[in-house]
C-alpha cells in the first residue's frame, strides 16, 4: 500500500515538478531555535488559516440552503438549524469558528507584535496582516447580519447610523449601507454578496500576499534581549541563521498541526454540544420591544458606544477606529528598527496589557449593560420591602414599578442599575429634595416626571420612598 502511494507520489512529483514548487515551499528553512519551546509561540498564524478554511467550507455548505431574501432568510435559517441533517452543527461550526477566528487573528497579531516580528524587513507582512484583521472583523459583522433576525435588523440600522457620522460623505455611506431609503428588500442581498464574494475575495488576495511574504521574508527568529534590528546588517545575519535552519515541514509544521487540531476540535465540540446560536425574533421593524446586541466579541465596542461623553460621539465612532487602524497599519513604518524582545520594550507590553484590560472591562460592562433600563413588565419589589407598609405606602411601592422608577433604580436588589440605589433614599434626601428630584429631574440621566404623576400619586410614591432608610 505505502509502496503504491510512494509510486504515485513520485509519478505526480516528477510530472508536476512539485519538488521545486510545493516541496520547496513546504521545506523552506526556518530558524533552528523554533525547535525549542519558543516554537510554540509561532503556531497562531497557521491556526487562523485552518479556521479560515473551516469557515470557507462550512460557509459554502450553508450557502447551499440559506436563502438570501428578506422574506425567506429567517425561515431558511430556522430550517438549517432545526430540520436539515447536521444543519445545526454546520451553523454552529460557522458561528463558533467566526469567534475563534477573531480571537486567533488577535492572538497571532499580539504575538507578532510582542516578538517585534513586524520590524524590518517584514513590514509588509504586518501591513497585509492588519488588512486581514480588518477583513476578518468585517466578515464577523456581516455574518451576524445574515442571521436576519431582530438583532441583525437593528444592527444594520446602527451600522448605517454610525456610517452617517462620517464627515461629508456620511449621508452617502448610510444610504449605501442600507442600499436605499430604509433597511428593506435591497439590503440583505448586498450584505450577502459582500459576505460571500467581496470580502472573501479580498481575504484570498491578501492571504496569498501574506503567505508569499512569510515564505519569501522568512519566519522571524525568536527575539533576544539586546539584539537590535539593524537594517544594514539584518538580512545577511538572517541568511546566515537559515544556513543552520530546520525545514518548516515537518519540524515546525507539526506544532501548527497540533494547535490547529485543538482549535478546530474545540469549535466542532462546541457546535455539537451547544449547537447553532438561537435566532432572535423575526426582523419585523414594527416589533418595538427589542434588545439588539452584537455577538460577544463586539460587546465591548457596544459598551464603548454607551459611555462616550456627550458631544464626542462622531469623533469616537469614526475617529477612534480610524486612528487605531491607521496606527496599527503604519506601526512597522514608525518602528522598523531597534529592540525586538518584549523585556526591552516596556511600552509594547504596557500597550498590550492596557488593550486587553480596557476591552475586557468594556466587555464586562457591555454584558451587564447597567445603563439600560430594565423591563418592568410583570416585575415587582421583593416581599421584604412590601411588608409592613401602610395603604398609601403600598400604593407608592406599586407606582415605583408602574411608573418605571424601577427601570433605573434598585431597592433591595431589585430594579435597574442606571440610577442610584434608593434603599436608603430617605436617609440621604429630605422630603422636599425627593419631591423636587422627581418633578424636575436631575443631571443628565434623571428625567423630569412632572407630567407622569397626579399630586396623589406623587404623595404615595414619596410616602413609600420615605420608608427607605437603609439597612
Amino acid at each position, binding site marked *: 500500500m505505502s509502496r503504491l502511494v510512494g509510486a504515485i507520489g513520485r509519478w505526480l512529483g516528477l510530472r508536476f515538478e512539485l519538488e521545486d514548487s510545493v516541496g520547496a515551499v513546504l521545506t523552506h528553512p526556518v530558524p533552528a531555535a523554533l525547535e525549542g519551546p519558543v516554537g510554540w509561540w509561532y503556531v497562531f498564524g497557521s491556526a487562523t488559516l485552518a479556521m479560515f478554511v473551516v469557515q470557507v467550507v462550512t460557509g459554502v455548505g450553508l450557502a447551499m440552503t440559506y436563502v438570501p*431574501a*428578506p*422574506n*425567506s432568510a429567517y425561515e431558511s435559517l430556522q430550517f438549517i438549524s432545526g430540520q436539515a441533517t447536521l444543519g445545526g452543527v454546520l451553523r454552529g461550526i460557522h458561528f463558533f469558528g467566526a469567534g475563534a477566528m477573531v480571537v486567533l487573528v488577535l492572538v497571532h497579531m499580539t504575538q507578532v507584535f510582542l516578538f517585534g516580528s513586524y520590524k524590518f524587513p517584514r513590514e509588509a507582512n504586518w501591513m497585509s496582516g492588519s488588512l486581514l484583521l480588518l477583513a476578518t472583523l468585517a466578515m464577523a459583522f456581516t455574518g451576524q447580519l445574515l442571521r436576519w433576525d431582530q438583532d441583525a*435588523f*437593528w444592527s444594520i*440600522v*446602527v451600522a*448605517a*447610523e454610525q456610517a*452617517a457620522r462620517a464627515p461629508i460623505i*456620511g*449621508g*452617502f455611506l*448610510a*444610504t*449605501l449601507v*442600507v442600499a*436605499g*431609503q*430604509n*433597511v*428593506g*428588500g*435591497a*439590503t*440583505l442581498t448586498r450584505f450577502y454578496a459582500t459576505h460571500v464574494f467581496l470580502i472573501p475575495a479580498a481575504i484570498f488576495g491578501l492571504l496569498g500576499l501574506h503567505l508569499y511574504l512569510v515564505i519569501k521574508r522568512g519566519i522571524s527568529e525568536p527575539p533576544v534581549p539586546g539584539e537590535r534590528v539593524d537594517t544594514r546588517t539584518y538580512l545577511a545575519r538572517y541568511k546566515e541563521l537559515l544556513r543552520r535552519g530546520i525545514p518548516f515541514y515537518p519540524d515546525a509544521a507539526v506544532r501548527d498541526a497540533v494547535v490547529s487540531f485543538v482549535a478546530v476540535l474545540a469549535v466542532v465540540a462546541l457546535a455539537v454540544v451547544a449547537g447553532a446560536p438561537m435566532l432572535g425574533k423575526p*426582523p*419585523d*421593524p*414594527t416589533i*418595538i*420591544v*427589542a*434588545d*439588539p446586541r452584537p455577538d460577544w466579541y463586539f460587546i465591548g465596542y*457596544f459598551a464603548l*458606544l*454607551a459611555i*462616550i461623553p*456627550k*458631544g464626542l*460621539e*462622531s469623533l469616537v465612532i469614526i475617529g477612534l477606529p480610524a486612528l487605531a487602524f491607521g496606527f496599527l497599519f503604519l506601526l512597522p513604518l514608525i518602528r522598523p528598527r531597534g529592540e525586538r524582545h518584549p523585556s526591552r520594550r516596556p511600552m509594547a507590553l504596557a500597550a498590550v496589557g492596557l488593550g486587553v484590560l480596557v476591552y475586557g472591562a468594556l466587555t464586562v460592562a457591555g454584558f451587564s449593560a447597567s*445603563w*439600560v*433600563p430594565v423591563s418592568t413588565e410583570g416585575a415587582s419589589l421583593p416581599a421584604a420591602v412590601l411588608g409592613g407598609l401602610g395603604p398609601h405606602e403600598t400604593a407608592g411601592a406599586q407606582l415605583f414599578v*408602574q*411608573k*418605571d422608577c424601577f*427601570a433605573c433604580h434598585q431597592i433591595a436588589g431589585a430594579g435597574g442599575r442606571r440610577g442610584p440605589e434608593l434603599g436608603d433614599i430617605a436617609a440621604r434626601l429630605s422630603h422636599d429634595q425627593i419631591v423636587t428630584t422627581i418633578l424636575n*429631574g436631575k443631571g*443628565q*440621566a*434623571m*428625567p*423630569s*416626571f412632572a*407630567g*407622569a404623576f397626579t399630586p396623589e400619586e406623587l404623595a404615595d410614591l414619596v410616602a413609600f420612598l420615605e420608608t427607605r432608610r437603609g439597612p
Partner: protein
Amino acid sequence: MDRRRFLSRVTIGLSGAIAALVGVPIVGYLIAPLFEREQDTYVAVGDTAKFQPGTTTLVQFDDPSPLAWAGQTAKTALWVRSISETSFQVFNVNCTHLGCPVDWRSQAKLFLCPCHGGVYYEDGTVAGGPPPRPLFERAWRVEAGKLMVKTQRLPTPGGGAP
C-alpha cells in the same frame, strides 16, 4: 517612439479601456441607491378618531412600493402622539443616538431606548442618556379624517437625506 514602446502603450491603454468598459456600469449599478429620488408620498396610518388626545400609539404602514421579496422589512413603525383631535406629533421609532427602536412607556410618559439607555419626553425632547437631539419627526397631514404621514429615508444625525 520605438516599436516596443508603442506596443507597450497600446497594451496598457487597451487594458485600461477594458477596465473602464466594465467598471463604469458595475460601479454605477452599485452606487445607484445614491441617485434614488426620495419617495415623497403620504400614506395613511389610521383614522384620526382612533388617536385619543393625550395618548401615544404605535402605528405601522407598508412601504408604498416595496420590492416583491422585501417581506416584513417593507413595514415601518412610527409613534403617533395625539395632542388634540387635529394636532399630532409623528416620531420615527429610531433613537437619535444610533437608531435602535425606542419604546413608549405610557405610565412614565417616556420613550426608552434599549441599546444605550436614551430617554425622551412625550414631545420627543431628550430626557436623558446619550441622544444628541430630539426624536426625528415626520411631516403629517389630515386627509378625509385619516392621518397621513410622509414616507422618508432612515433619519441620520446629519439630518436625514444626503
